[in-house]
């Protein structure tokens, strides 16, 4: 939990800093909007956590987000390029497609023993191309489809905006279910065991293939759910929807304490990680410093929006560097303590005990 709590602290500090620099940060519309962004990212970040904890990786989820949205637009839009079927058909087909994608990739990885990175890299490109083909390189608008209400609607309205938007509620449900499965069920235990020691899991009689297959289906499935939300939110579906989202999800997972070696990570951490990713995005727009220039004119200094990726990348690196430094310092301290403790347990010895205290000399 060390990593999670550290990140929670960082998140809180970041929010306070943003709020002091610009009080609009905690204004109703920004909060609602940022929460929606966190929720939509969080939904599939929870999914990819299942894969990452087994020691796998899923690069295709950004494309699955796009594919889902594009399928809904193509089937259910009443605008140009849409086939005008009822919305429920579009959504069902899209969700099924996402599950099938996960199933196929999972089968390739577990049955043919292909590397997850390669399989899902192929999937990422392939499904992006499928999306492009479906929209024929253009844009399909959802028009004023009732689907849009999914992104803007919710419970407990405050003014124009709902306090609990549907995406947030969906995320809460996915996260709760994910936390339950991962932390309280047999499946969750197996997922951690596979990430910790695959052979041990196999020799313990765990059907490793089946569990891994399931994680890829879960990952892809949550990307599908997120895809429905993004379709509702964006409303104009093109091949560009969801590009690089898998990297956001992986970054959220890593920030939240998942190890890409597997065996580590929690849903709580994912929640924190996804929040940090989106607060940074939002913060780059919100952060401002007011100052008076030499001519006595009050001016506002803002971050250059071109720095977006620089800042996101730097935050990820700083986070893992800090984590590793803390880890190394702790390990060194444990070692020192252990060696300082040992002589007491041993018999009296002719070497001076002072030596024990100066290993850093």
């Amino acid at each position, binding site marked *: 939990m060390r990593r999670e709590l550290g990140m929670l602290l960082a998140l809180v500090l970041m929010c306070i800093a943003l709020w002091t620099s610009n009080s609009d940060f905690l204004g109703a519309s920004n909060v609602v909007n940022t929460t929606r962004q966190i929720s939509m990212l969080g939904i599939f970040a929870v999914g990819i956590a299942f894969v990452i904890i087994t020691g796998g990786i899923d690069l295709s989820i950004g494309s699955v987000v796009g594919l889902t949205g594009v399928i809904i637009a193509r089937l259910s839009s009443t605008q140009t390029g849409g086939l005008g079927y009822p919305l429920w058909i579009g959504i069902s087909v899209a969700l099924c497609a996402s599950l099938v994608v996960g199933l196929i990739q999972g089968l390739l990885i577990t049955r043919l023993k292909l590397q997850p990175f390669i399989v899902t890299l192929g999937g990422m490109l392939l499904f992006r191309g499928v999306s492009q083909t479906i929209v024929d390189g253009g844009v399909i608008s959802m028009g004023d489809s009732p689907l849009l209400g999914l992104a803007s609607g919710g419970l407990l309205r405050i003014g124009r905006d709902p306090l609990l938007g549907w995406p947030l509620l969906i995320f809460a449900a996915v996260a709760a279910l994910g936390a339950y499965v991962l932390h309280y069920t*047999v499946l969750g235990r197996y997922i951690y065991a596979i990430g910790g020691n695959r052979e041990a899991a196999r020799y*313990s009689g765990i059907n490793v293939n089946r569990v891994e297959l399931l994680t890829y289906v879960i990952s892809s499935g949550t990307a599908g759910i997120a895809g429905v939300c993004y379709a509702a939110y964006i409303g104009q579906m093109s091949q560009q929807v969801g590009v690089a989202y898998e990297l956001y999800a992986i970054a959220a997972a890593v920030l939240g304490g998942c190890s890409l070696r597997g065996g580590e990570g929690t849903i709580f951490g994912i929640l924190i990680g996804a929040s940090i990713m989106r607060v940074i995005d939002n913060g780059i727009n919100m952060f401002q410093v007011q100052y008076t220039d030499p001519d006595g004119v009050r001016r506002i200094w803002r971050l250059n929006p071109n720095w977006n990726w620089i800042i996101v990348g730097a935050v990820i690196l700083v986070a893992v560097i800090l984590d590793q430094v803390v880890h190394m310092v702790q390990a060194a301290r444990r070692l020192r303590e*252990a060696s300082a403790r040992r002589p007491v347990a*041993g018999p009296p010895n002719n070497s001076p005990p002072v030596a024990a205290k*100066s290993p850093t000399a």
Partner: protein
Amino acid sequence: MSAASESQMRPLLEMRGITKRFPGVVALQGVSLSLRAGEVLALMGENGAGKSTLMKILGGVQLPDEGQISIRGEPVVLGSVKDSKAQGIALIHQELMLAPNLDIASNIFLGNEGVKGGLLAPLRRAKMNRRAAELLSQVGLSLPVTTPVARLTAGQMQMVEIAKALSTQARIIIMDEPTSSLASAESEQLFEIIRRLKQDGIGIVYISHRMQEVMDLADRITVLRDGRYVGDLERAVASHDKVVAMMVGRELSGQYFPEKRARTSTEIRLEVRDLAVPGAPARASFSARKGEILGFAGLIGAGRTELMEAIFGVTPALSGEMTLDGKPYRPARPRDAIDEGVYLAPEDRKRHGLVLPMSVAENTSLPNVASYAPLGWLNRKTEQRVAEQGVERLRTKTPSVQQAVVNLSGGNQQKVVLAKWLAMAPKVLILDEPTRGIDVGAKAEIYRHMADLAEQGITILMVSSDLEETIGMSDRVVVMHERRLKGVLERHELTQLAIAGLMTGRDHGAAERQAGEAEVALS
């Protein structure tokens, strides 16, 4: 005869005519084995004799091509790990099969959570923890069941494995070299538990290369060679030589350990003074002579590996001095040590000693690859020639030097590690557990090579947890305990008792200690 005693007469486990073929090799050819309840059956054989395949068949990991397995007289098919467990068979692997990121209780019940309802059934942690605590006390481990396995010592992990076996109500427990990573005290504890399991009527198949253990523990010994059943020996009639003869198919000529040289040189090769190794409370001082085999005895965790890593520059020493042939020697990284002719064959050869998917030739040239490429590109012919020389010199069994090291047996892998350093004219060769997991025949060969190297003036620092080996091979022995040097034993002092005493923390007798110090001071 009562029904109970009759069922005791019937073997708990019987394997008959087991044959298993792999593409190109017959791993097992008509092997038979029987195990009675409450019996320890030692399964012996050189590496490649088929022991692991037999184990995998029992564990349900592989199906035999031919043959029959019956348990308590009932024929069974062990088609999966689950089947095998259901029949009361538990395997304890040499490389422990635990998930380090999970706690003890989770590991004990991994794959056997005791809840109905498939994968999505909720875990019952309180019940698992309670039951795990009971099992831990049965194996004499007093640790909280929520301790992550990553924090345990090798010995404690072994106990967790046994607790795991007991949790499945196993009646047959198969242990593959359970002591290979344990120190003597931990091994003793293990033997104690094995004896207790016997009393409970559990049958144990015990695979080990350590003859002494087998002689102490086993009721019967089954010997395999080249995938065939050679024979059974009752403990009463078994002797060290007899078993070895059955394993290698010939009487090992004369002695197992090569004759020790009459005198080693008095020239000091490596001198270590007040070396502070990270994590060790006391500074270490010792010296090693030219052409000497200096043994390092101690329990696991006594700090021997750490000391060797400091000498090889993996974790540089914090303070203190070292001299090599009288010149200051202070390696900050392995490269420095290698440049000075100090080489390490690490304990875990698969992880630190070799690049398994690479070929024999590539592994041999690895530390010195630049010298094969004077003009910037790699001279594969030279590489191959040097590797072939190494193979010839050490009589490594490999179809060619292009063979991937992963396909060689443990003994031959170790020879590749040795060849790699021999190609570079070593001054000091550090061998950390040089014969771990290596079969008897190959062991004798490694010993002979070590003696040859010492004869050529190479100084060998040998870390070994096998006392027989330490005494058999060393000219002198440094004993460590709790990360301190406890004493240096001269050749005439080398007895199991003397070493074991120091290893377990007993103090060197005053007179001997003075002698030891005088020795250290002199050198």
